[in-house]
């Protein structure tokens, strides 16, 4: 079966003050129907720009290279009008902060009804009825009343449910969720994660889940890509990533997390900070912070080596083990 989404050699660059900044560099991955792919990394690693590139929501200052095939169609070759018929319809997106993603001036019900009328051609009344039904499906109590309310009248968890209802309105084949639970409290996060699992099971939706929370990754994802400074540094199935992480950055990330189930006296922090976009090191981008850095790491960028059937790693330590 062909993957639902296939990204190949995607690079996203921005021109700023006479210089070119590469925010996403040579990123390739795929997601199948019913599968959840996690994209993990810290601030500035390019994970959100990757998702906005797929949606083509970056505006004219961004230059996209490579190919992004959604259900066989190269998204980068579509006209803006063709893109609009896909966006919110066959590909939907959930953002981190539902308050800024919802229109404060329109009632909830009308906002959910809009894509239904636009993409599915439903009448005003049909769309309104379907909107109430969708609100019930995402577990919103008093759905009829809530449909007439405005975003500011709802709590953060309720707003995120509304976002999910809106995203699922046209039964998309691909759902891009960018930090969907980061702004929520843990007990509300638990509710939203359950809801996303239900949606995935019932509709076989492919999900691209962007998060910095490795706990959420372990619970939700089948496969994971780890990004650092605009590149994929490791790709693995979720079991291997946690049982046998290969890239020193992935290892460092896992070790620097405090654990809720055990005690450790000191955390193993990763020294230093992520390099700035215009000051990227010549070799491996993680080398300045890496405890295992060798001479070659500072000079030459490693490729994404294949280390097992399900795992790839951008690190010179794995050169002998696999081939790119």
């Amino acid at each position, binding site marked *: 079966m062909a993957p639902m989404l296939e990204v190949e050699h995607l690079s996203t660059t921005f021109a700023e003050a006479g210089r070119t900044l590469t925010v996403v560099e040579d990123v390739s991955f795929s997601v199948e129907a019913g599968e959840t792919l996690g994209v993990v990394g*810290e*601030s500035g690693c390019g994970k959100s720009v990757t998702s906005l590139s797929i949606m083509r929501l970056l505006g004219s200052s961004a230059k996209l290279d490579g190919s992004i095939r959604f259900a066989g169609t190269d998204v980068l070759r579509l006209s803006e009008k063709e893109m609009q018929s896909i966006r919110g319809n066959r590909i939907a997106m959930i953002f981190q902060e539902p308050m800024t993603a919802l229109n404060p001036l329109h009632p909830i019900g009308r906002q959910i009804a809009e894509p239904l009328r636009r993409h599915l051609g439903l009448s005003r009344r049909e769309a309104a009825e379907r909107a109430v039904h969708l609100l019930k499906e995402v577990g919103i*109590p008093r759905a009829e009343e809530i449909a007439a309310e405005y975003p500011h009248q709802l*709590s*953060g*968890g*309720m707003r995120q449910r509304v976002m999910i209802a809106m995203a699922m309105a046209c039964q998309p084949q691909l759902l891009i969720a960018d930090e969907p639970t980061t702004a929520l*409290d*843990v*007990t*509300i*996060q*638990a*509710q939203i*994660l*359950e809801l996303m699992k239900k949606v995935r099971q019932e509709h076989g939706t492919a999900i691209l889940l962007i998060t*910095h*929370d*490795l*706990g*959420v*990754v*372990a*619970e939700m994802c089948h496969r994971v890509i780890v990004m650092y400074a605009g590149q994929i540094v490791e790709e693995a199935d*979720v*079991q291997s990533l*946690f*049982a046998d992480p290969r890239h020193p950055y992935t290892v*460092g*990330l*896992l070790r*620097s*997390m*405090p*654990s*809720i*189930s055990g*005690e*450790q006296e*000191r*955390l*193993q*922090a*990763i*020294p230093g*900070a992520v390099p700035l976009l215009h000051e990227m090191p010549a070799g491996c981008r993680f080398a300045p912070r890496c405890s295992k850095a060798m001479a070659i790491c500072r000079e030459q960028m490693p490729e994404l080596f294949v280390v097992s059937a399900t795992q790839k790693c951008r690190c010179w330590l794995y050169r002998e083990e696999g081939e790119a």
Partner: protein
Amino acid sequence: MSQPLLEVRGLKKYFPVKTGFWGREKVVRAVDGVHLTVYPGETLSIVGESGCGKSTTGRCILRLIEPTEGEILFQGRDIRALNAAGLRAARRDMQLVFQDPFASLNPRKTVGQILQDPLIVHGIGTPAERRKRVEEMIEIVGLTRQHLDRFPHEFSGGQRQRIGIARALILRPKLVVADEPVSALDVSIQAQILNLLKDLQREFQLTYLFISHDLSVVRHISDRVAVMYLGKVVEVADKKALYERPAHPYTQALLSAVPVPDPTREVNRIILEGDLPSPANPPSGCQFHPRCRHCMEVCRTTVPPLKEAKPGHLVACHLA
């Protein structure tokens, strides 16, 4: 056990709010009868979800906002009885580290000036002595003297939080209230700051009141933990007891909700129904009863007191 450094008894903070244009005045009970005891040299954490009153509690203790009611005894003296001069003197011993290292540093001052200000306010040392103390402090938090002449915007989030910590510690306080000090940071940087806080505690015999929503961070940093829900403390215990044998149904649900970074672990979760009720209109009896799976008749009518269920383990629940 030694004398407590800080004792909070029956602390309340009610904020008046108006509803609508002609609306009657209502009160939001942000903090509604909090009791806490903090011993010298320990880290007591307050953990809870947004709106539970944990930050307001921290700020009331430093009198950055005036409490409505209650006693705050610091080294046996009631902070609420102090006049402005007395309060300023007392603040030398109690300092705050803020969550947002972007908003809490004056963008027009150099790091050197920011660190020197508390010394000037409290009339400590000659200019030369102050300069020396600032230089020592910046190195203690892992930055260098060259950083002193720069402005806050030239630093990353983690570095700014180091500056915020240096500013809090330059007066050599006894108590540091840290309000979500690592929440704005990435996990690899967060680990650096948590390690720094632990090192500093050992070096300067600090007592921390650590306020956080992150249960994993709290387990790492604390000796004892207080869980707050809707303005009240519902459980206090040693960290081991709290995480391994939580007694309050809210604590149990909260702990079970945290996703664990282990894909082989079966998710066995208590999903709470509904949202946090509004502190302007809290439920009768136990505030948690509408979401509690063990709710009994008595829970709807009577507020459960915070009482000792086991030695050192306080729980506010009719079941305990």
